């Protein structure tokens, strides 16, 4: 779950990571109640990167100018994400910019600090990036070594290290995938401030993080509506451009089925992994989700039951067929209880094709 900049900064503040003064507004007239002085920075609150390049950050020299800019920004849509609100901050006199983040490194299997003294750009494009694995048990000295390695000294070293230490605490305590400050800026007077903030909360951890309880639905705004619905149903759906709806269990088999559709000349309408152990209700919900796609011509259902019981799937299919008799279905159903499933479906007009390649080819034929 991605957080908005202002939400990330609220968490920064709770942990003592210095942030600039700021105010969140949703209407231009709220600008009258901001007394930071001018120039001001106005920033679109959107759940996507590349906001600056897309014109989502503007400066205003006066209230009049701010009131002119604010409505434009509030209307701005960036990469399909609507602006929800604006974060207004004084424009700072920046003397230096840094990048700092903590994320879990999948290759090393441990969290890592990533830092560079070139902030404000995409870290992938920066040189002299320092990546420092955080082995267990953690101790704060690591953050000072990090600060030293990106070339800091004096009070800046201690301030940077202290911020890095706090980011790590947040990362662990809040179960994050990523916490990032880009840029972390040094301003006149040598203070360090998090000018922008990004937090990605680990989706699997949401249920044990009471702080984020109820946040998920309002933070899926960047997803297409059907993917959002799927996420709330606990199934993995990715929308694609084609016309053959794909519903499988297991990520690998779903991808492989998708790949086969393409290999034999068809176009997948979606990736839908109903997950292992899908019961009747979940399978039905998944069928309904696939069916929402207006381009859909046929649904290819490929279930190889490991945890999943084929009879549960068959029952879901029966319900679906009763409600949508016009939808073309190609079904391949094997594994646990496959005979029961066959029995159940024998009373309905659902064609079972046990061979995957044949099933894929049949679906393509039905779609064209």
């Amino acid at each position: 779950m991605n957080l908005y900049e202002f939400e990330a900064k609220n968490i920064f503040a709770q942990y003592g990571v210095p942030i600039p003064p700021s105010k969140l507004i949703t209407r231009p007239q709220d600008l009258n109640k901001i007394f930071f002085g001018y120039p001001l920075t106005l920033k679109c609150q959107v759940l996507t990167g590349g906001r600056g390049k897309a014109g989502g950050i503007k400066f205003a020299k006066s209230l009049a100018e701010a009131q002119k800019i604010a409505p434009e920004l509030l209307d701005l849509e960036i990469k399909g994400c609507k602006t929800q609100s604006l974060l207004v901050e004084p424009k700072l006199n920046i003397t230096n910019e840094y990048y700092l983040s903590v994320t879990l490194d999948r290759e090393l299997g441990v969290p890592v600090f990533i830092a560079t003294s070139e902030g404000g750009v995409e870290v992938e494009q920066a040189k002299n990036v320092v990546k420092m694995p955080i082995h267990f048990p953690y101790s704060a000295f690591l953050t000072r070594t990090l600060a030293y390695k990106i070339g800091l000294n004096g009070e800046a070293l201690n301030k940077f290290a202290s911020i890095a230490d706090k980011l790590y605490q947040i990362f662990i305590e809040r179960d994050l995938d990523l916490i990032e400050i880009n840029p972390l800026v040094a301003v006149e007077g040598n203070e360090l401030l998090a000018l922008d903030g990004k937090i990605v909360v680990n989706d699997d951890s949401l249920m044990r993080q009471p702080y984020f309880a109820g946040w998920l639905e309002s933070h899926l705004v960047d997803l297409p509506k059907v993917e959002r619905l799927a996420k709330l149903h606990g199934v993995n759906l990715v929308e694609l451009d084609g016309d053959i709806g794909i519903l499988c269990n297991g990520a690998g088999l779903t991808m492989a089925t998708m790949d086969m559709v393409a290999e034999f000349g068809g176009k997948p309408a979606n990736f839908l992994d109903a997950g292992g152990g899908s019961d009747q209700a979940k399978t039905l919900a998944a069928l309904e989700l696939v069916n929402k796609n207006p381009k859909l011509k046929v649904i290819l259902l490929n279930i190889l039951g490991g945890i999943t019981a084929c009879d549960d799937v068959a029952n879901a299919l029966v319900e679906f067929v009763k409600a949508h008799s016009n939808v073309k279905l190609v079904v391949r159903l094997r594994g646990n209880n496959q005979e029961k499933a066959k029995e159940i479906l024998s009373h309905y007009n659902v064609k079972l094709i046990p061979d995957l390649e044949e099933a894929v080819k049949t679906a393509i034929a039905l779609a064209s």
Partner: protein
Amino acid sequence: MILVNKDTKVVVQGITGKMGQTHTARMLEYGTQIVAGVTPGRGGQTVHGVPVFDTVAQAVEKTNANCSIVFVPPYLACDAGFEAIHVGVSLLVVITEGIPPNDTAKLVNYANSHKVTFMGPNCPGVVSPGHSLIGIMPGSIFKEGKVGMVSKSGTLTYEIALALTEANLGQSTCVGVGGDPVKGIEYQPVLNLFEADPHTDVIVLIGEIGGNAEEKAAQYIKEHIKKPVVGFIAGQTAPPGKRMGHAGAIISQGSGTAKSKIEAFEKANIRVAKTPGQVAKLVSELIKQPAVK
């Protein structure tokens, strides 16, 4: 045959849950030595005739179990894994999906420091067909034989194993390492075991988009594995930046693509199948030849 055999004695953590009960029955039916179950507070009960204990320590003391399979819910799985490792099992298989990655990282660290083989999480387990099945794989699709399989994906493993079985190509052992980005055992140690296993003639390596484990495995195969390897990569049509089911299956910033993995396989002289069905064909070609590379 690697990792598990007829002598492997298994304790099922979370045996009284729905998943635990179901798969205990299936594993027993397969012939696996399920000697104990653990559910705290349920000590003294039985599940399908298997005695249930309150702690793994008791279970191991009473039954000499040397392997644990974990079905407990995501937020309790890390602690369950710690318990099994602490008590001294030599193989830990974690089926549970949705464990927070910070927990997995802790568990990997703990398993490593205790020299325990930790498989998973979010994996289908391991089967040595005809001998022992420790996991959630449907036993009927496997057949004893000479093909060693290692895979990130459960259902794709079943698909390919089924094709092999139907082509009369049995399997020595099938290992599902799981689809999470941070995990216990990865391809390399399994490849080493297959290389040394007299019952394995051909290795099938099943990968998917995300990370660079397949690239690293390919490099390792090129340098250290003499047995022939057939590879398959799922996700050639996956769009970038989207998580494809598995937490680890995501192409991010251009890395982790199927293309990169397939190229790495080809450079390492690994035969790459285009469809799951084709894996069986390639294996059958290789198994007829003398096993040189």
